[in-house]
């Protein structure tokens, strides 16, 4: 080919390239205008965030397909062989090369959070591996905003991995701690023999349990250290006043290096110094007007409702936020999840709130047991009994841990109340689900009373005189409601049909239990006593004995407290 024929061909190629770029820009502009008119989706940053995808595709030319085949095979082989070096890079390249495929992203998010994290030996590494899965999901979210499948995956990671997995005892408190405002840390160094003293006082000063694993000091093996936030360290120092214990300030610059492509080591802080959601998480996406819900594309639009968060944001709260965004997109925009039904997506927000309220309940219970110096049981079902008979006269000195317990009880009551509203919203769209979620909703009502009562009881312990009496009266009312609601719940759902006649009053059946006209409050204790005796007689071997025991523990706690409060009439 000579130069004379080459030049026109090159010219045509350049013109074609420019023409296709121009056509693409016009189409995108048109699409953006249409979306803006509807106040939805498309982000102007989308093109920039997809630059990597374009660059990689361009670099590979026509080899994108073969490259993907190699990447998929080798990354899956590496996973099977548990040789995970380079694995993340391969997954990242797959993400960039298959940016348009939801199925790929859903698989990889799940792959990292479940298959890969489970291969890690230590909890901190498992935690950061799940954060990496979360980062992957957020990368896709930036490129494909308001995608129900991706948002539900993010919510699922918060709900199932951080909030509800076997390792939740470590994950959830750490996540809450990391969402708190950026604060300096203090290294508390102490002689090894003072370990128990320091840990106990640090806990009373409000240190989360997960930071209370002392490490050896490199330069002096007779000493140990823990690292806590500065306000906690200040409180600890005021409590201990021990010259053997030293405090080293460690300044924190920022939490995460935004330029880094490395795997993150911690979750972002999302709260300001007032423990409110940082404004950047509430800003509408570029080009959209603020609406206060998922319609404006802001990241955490549903969390301000429950702020402030003095002890960090629960993973269930974050799950709630993202499930609410899914719900909004589903109800308002007709969006659909690629794999889950609309019914499932719709119900998740309520479930998240319920789990959040239960998490606060159990965290508060554990802390309360610690506060009263009793051994903390591992099973949630065993948390009710240890402190139920603590006297109202118990001399409690105000401390940060006590404040946290009261806050968590009150928050649990507030959130369980919100869960009831959320269940009602779901049932409005899917009335058939009443058979599934009615019991959830009813137990949340009972929980609200119990949590309020427990908070009031602790407040009453601290109060004196008239204030104490007023608090006692309020607590009594709440405990009574809790006992009745839980009892009705047990009699409604955990009473076998064949036993109903022997347990319930004449002419009352299980369907009537919730009706206070047919089963007045005064008759409930007798029915419960009969049912209790029945389970005891069987050695708790009846089909629903386990559930009964768990729920009856709440009734018994309420009754034990009522017995104590009765002394103040």
């Amino acid at each position, binding site marked *: 080919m000579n130069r004379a024929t080459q030049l026109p061909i090159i010219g045509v190629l350049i013109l074609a390239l420019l023409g296709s770029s121009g056509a693409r820009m016009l189409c995108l502009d048109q699409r953006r205008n249409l979306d803006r008119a509807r106040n939805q989706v498309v982000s102007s940053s989308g093109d920039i965030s997809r630059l990597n995808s374009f660059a990689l595709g361009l670099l590979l030319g026509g080899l994108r397909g073969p490259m993907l085949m190699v990447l998929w095979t080798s990354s899956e082989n590496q996973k099977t062989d548990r040789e995970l070096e380079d694995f993340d890079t391969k997954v990242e390249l797959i993400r960039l090369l298959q940016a348009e495929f939801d199925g790929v992203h859903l698989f990889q998010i799940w792959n990292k959070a479940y298959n890969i994290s489970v291969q890690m030996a230590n909890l901190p590494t498992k935690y950061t591996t799940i954060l990496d899965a979360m980062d992957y999901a957020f990368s896709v979210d930036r490129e494909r905003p308001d995608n129900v499948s991706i948002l539900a995956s993010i919510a699922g990671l918060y709900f199932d991995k951080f909030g509800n997995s076997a390792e939740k005892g470590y994950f959830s408190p750490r996540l809450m701690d990391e969402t708190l405002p950026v604060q300096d840390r203090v290294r508390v160094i102490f002689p090894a023999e003072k370990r128990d003293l320091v840990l106990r006082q640090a806990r009373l000063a409000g240190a989360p349990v997960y930071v209370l694993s002392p490490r050896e000091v490199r330069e002096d093996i007779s000493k140990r250290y823990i690292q806590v936030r500065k306000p906690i360290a200040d409180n600890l120092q005021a409590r201990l006043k021990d010259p053997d214990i030293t405090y080293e300030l460690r300044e924190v610059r920022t939490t995460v*290096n935004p330029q880094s492509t490395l795997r993150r080591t911690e979750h972002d802080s999302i709260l300001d110094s007032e423990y409110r959601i940082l404004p950047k998480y509430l800003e509408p996406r570029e080009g959209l007007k603020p609406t206060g819900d998922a319609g404006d594309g802001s990241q955490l639009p549903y969390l301000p409702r429950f702020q402030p968060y003095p002890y960090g944001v629960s993973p269930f709260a974050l799950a709630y936020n993202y499930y609410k965004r899914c719900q909004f997109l589903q109800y308002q925009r007709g969006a659909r999840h690629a794999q889950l039904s609309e019914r499932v997506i719709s119900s998740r927000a309520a479930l998240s709130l319920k789990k959040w309220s239960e998490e606060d309940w159990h965290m508060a219970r554990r802390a309360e047991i610690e506060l009263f110096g009793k051994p903390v049981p591992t099973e949630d079902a065993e948390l009710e009994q240890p402190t139920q008979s603590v006297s109202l006269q118990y001399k409690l000195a105000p401390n940060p841990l006590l404040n946290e317990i009261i806050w968590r009880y009150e928050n649990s009551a507030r959130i369980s109340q919100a869960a009831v509203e959320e269940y009602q919203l779901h049932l409005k769209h899917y009335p058939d689900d009443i058979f599934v979620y009615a019991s959830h909703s009813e137990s949340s009502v009972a929980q609200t009373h119990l949590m309020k009562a427990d908070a009031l009881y602790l407040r009453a312990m601290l109060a004196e005189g008239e204030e104490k009496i007023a608090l006692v009266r309020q607590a009594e009312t709440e405990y009574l409601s809790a006992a009745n609601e839980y009892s009705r719940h047990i009699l409604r759902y955990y009473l076998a049909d064949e036993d109903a006649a022997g347990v319930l009053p004449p002419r009352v059946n299980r369907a009537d239990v919730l009706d206070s006209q047919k089963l007045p409050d005064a008759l409930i204790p007798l029915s419960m006593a009969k049912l209790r005796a029945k389970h005891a007689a069987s050695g708790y071997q009846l089909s629903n004995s386990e559930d009964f025991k768990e729920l009856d523990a709440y009734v018994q706690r309420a009754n034990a407290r009522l017995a104590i409060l009765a002394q103040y009439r």
Partner: protein
Amino acid sequence: MPEFIAANFAWFLASLIILVGVFLYGFADITRLSVGRVWAIGGVCFRDAIRRKVLWVTPLAMLGVVVVSMLQHPVDQPDAIRQTIKFCFFASGLVVTIIALIVAATNLPRDIESRVVFTIVTKPVTRLEIVLGKIVGFARVSAAMLLIMGLFTWGYLHLRAWYLGKQISWTLASPQLDPAQREWLQHFEDEGLLFSQTIYTPVRLAQYSDIQNSSISKLFILGGAQDAIATFVIDRSIIDDPSLAGSTYRLVYRIPYQSAPKLSPLPAGVPEPHPSITTVILNGQADQTLVSPQQLTRAVAGTSDPSAGIARLDLPNPGVDIPTGIMSQLANIGTFTVQMIPSSERYLYEITSDPVALQVITPGPDGQPVVRELLPKAPPLTRGSVGRSGQQLRSAENGVEPLAIFRFLDVQKPRTINGKVPFELKVGVDRSAADTDTGDKTTLEITVADRVKGKHFSEQPVLVNVENRRTAFFTVPAEWIENDDFDVVIKNRSPNSTVGLIPSSVLLVADREPFVINLLKGLGVLWLFSLLVAIIAFFCSTFLSWPIAVVLSLLILLGRWTWMQLDTGSGFGAQVANEFAGNNPGLARVVSGSVDALTSGFNLITSVLPDISPFGIVEQIERGSTIAWSQFLPPLTVLGLFGLPLIALAYVILRNKEVAP
């Protein structure tokens, strides 16, 4: 064929080709060979390649490296630099291989097509000088490209290392950093990200069990968790010797046992297990079962006394009788290994001295049996149960503490840092449950036993936190490693987790050298590879058009490697027949036979193709392991065995080829 010739057949064949092709057929050209003319032809070839702008490919490769490095998603900074090294070497290797292939395959056909060759062959140069000159020219092109890519790699890696080093300092300044991650990053802050170190690997990994807090010096293995293997060397005489006619053969065990010291009670109704040994007979390398427990049981059941020997024997016992037929097979093989698998974690089995022997029991003239006893060729090797990550090391249980022992031998004085000797440790970790009660980390306890002094430095063990398949670093006092023969002893201190170990799980870092030297060595190996590629491509181009020459060169280069990846071992035909022929036995026989015949054919063909695996050194550079000079020998051998004969053949073909009227 004599054994010496069979073992060195490839060398003989290569020498024969060179001898006949060059020294006999081309004797006249040998006598006229001029290094100056070879170099001059090489220079022409090099300048021609430069004129064809082959070096312009290097900026593209560099751009590719930079882009992919920016898109990588490493776990941390050491991972980032390791991946960047891989990208750099991959790009360098790819570019230099492709260019060598294309330049070498197209050079001669282009010369012929453009009639440039007329001007060469009409000069007083021999065909041998042309062939050698072209190869030298290709080698110079490859060297130039590798020089450019090497300079880029050196510069870019240092730039990345500087930037990532700053990130490490930044990350270490973060007080929230997890302590285990801090220890890991601190190591790289101290030692740098680009390094090359000489390492010693253990010669052997064994496992035993100790009774916790006791000073008993017996060697125990724990039932259900560890086993022992002993290798016997026998010959046909034990079967064929007339004096041994009518003999019976018996494996006897002398394995005292005792209960674990702190046994938890068994659930109600579960009987206390009895200590027993299960026997498996393996081939000499202990990687293939020759006689399984079931086969032994079946074989023994067919003898006159079925109760005489069963595979699983309750202890103490008379031993396992090996039927004469099986013994005859073993004698044909010559070397076999007996694997002794003890049962139940509630027992410890002592294997201090000669735990197993092979008895040949011959009826004596007086009716009394005459017993001849053969012992294994070496004391038995004790091992942990093998899991996905290697030998499994459990934590202490029932008062028994399993130990992994890595034996180091002939270790020359390693370097010390502040009076300590550095080691690397990489293990697999399986946690049995996602439990938070047993702590958030997996910890190993490390001590050293000096075999020369007979002293175990166990007073102040080193504790190391490990993560699954991630290198951890630890140091031990230099006085623990004063002699060249010592054991590194590891205990697992984390309940509910099992650690998987392989012999190379523990490495002793003996010395360091500058990264640039390792880089140059790596590029040197790549250059040898490009030379091989160029020779093959040039050889193919002497009798084929260049596109076909390129394809054939790729086939020759990758044929053996690809065939090895298919992993067609014995029984491949049956395996394929099983997949495709279903329940049709006739078809299965045909498929199986055809596939086996094809496999044999391919095996034969690929056995004469070059093995390119010795050129793979990137992983070593990535991991910062020094390339020893001796590692150049295998690539040079491939080049000698394959490259030199091909040069000879190319010369013979070219000499007989009419390239000009």
